């Protein structure tokens, strides 16, 4: 089901250990996550290179957001309370 596939993708893009386990045996991991046999086969066709590269990109974006958040980068310009 769509929800199961989205949940699996979310885990694959955020959890390195889970991603490594999936790359080693994608069909079994997908089935464990509740995907149908057809969905698990479709997940197994996802190139591991693409998955790893995408995950690296997401990690970078999450780190950038944290860095920007720490600087309160947009707040400062419109601060009206004199700080």
């Amino acid at each position, binding site marked *: *089901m*769509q*929800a199961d*596939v*989205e*949940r699996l*993708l*979310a*885990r694959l*893009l*955020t*959890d390195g250990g889970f991603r490594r386990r999936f790359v080693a045996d994608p069909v079994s991991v997908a089935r464990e996550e509740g995907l149908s046999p057809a*969905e698990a086969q*479709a*997940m197994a*066709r*996802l*190139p591991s*290179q*693409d*998955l*790893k*590269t*995408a*995950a*690296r*990109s*997401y990690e970078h*974006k*999450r780190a950038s*957001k944290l860095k920007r958040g720490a600087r309160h*980068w*947009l*707040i*400062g*310009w*419109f*601060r*009206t*309370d004199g700080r």
Partner: protein
Amino acid sequence: MDRVGLGWRPELAAGIFDALDEIDVLEVIADNYLDMHRQQRRALRMMARQVPIHIHSIALGLAGIEEVTSKRLDRVARLVNEVEPEAWSEHLAFVRAGGVEIGHLAAPPRTEASVAGAARNLQRARAAVGSMPLMENIATLIEPPCSQLPEAEWIAGIMSASGCGLLLDLHNLHANATNFGFDPLQFLSSIPLERVGCVHIAGGQWITAADGDKRYLLDDHLHDVPAPVYELLSVLAARAPQPLTVILERDGAYPPMPALLQELQHTRAALAAGRRQRAA
């Protein structure tokens, strides 16, 4: 009349205010203002009185199968209602699933189920905010597994089912077409261009696979707009009947303001070239 604008970033604020006669519209990232004090949002509202503003939301995840919560929608609704922008927008993406926060935009499987789920979320968004967002096509480095529909057909399906307009990101289109080997012109032929409510342009860079030598075009908003994106903009201007609003997105590695203004001039020239072709 076509308009050209810029994404509002504090690093660019002084330059933007100095060049407001060359900037027709500004786009503000909603998520950076959701937790701000009312006074600070009021300052944003004052800016909206000076120059048309679009509010661009990132983290609702409206194209996910999970129902977007009222709490998240209410926060965006409060900002939109306080600032009174010309338009607001979100992404054709999911950002969380099963309690896992991805932290950025992700492409869901393009299925009939996700068309229906997105349409449901968009109706909830319209009910909460009072207007339908423009929805943006996203860049992705993975072709969503379990997809049944090509990207253009999936987008057109959501537009048809929900009634939303499109925020057409031409660099996202260029990057996806490059990475997955489809024709961006065919994509433009497959979506209702008359319902493009806004256009994004940006730049990116080539990256190499985490393991291996495969190369990908990454949409990073850190580089100049490449020639193929301007060419797509001209094609769009030649085909679309309505006035277009084009926003240049830049999220870092900021060049001097004159260089950004030059990109805006290049944007106007690309639009004009397309309009001439349309008139011929």
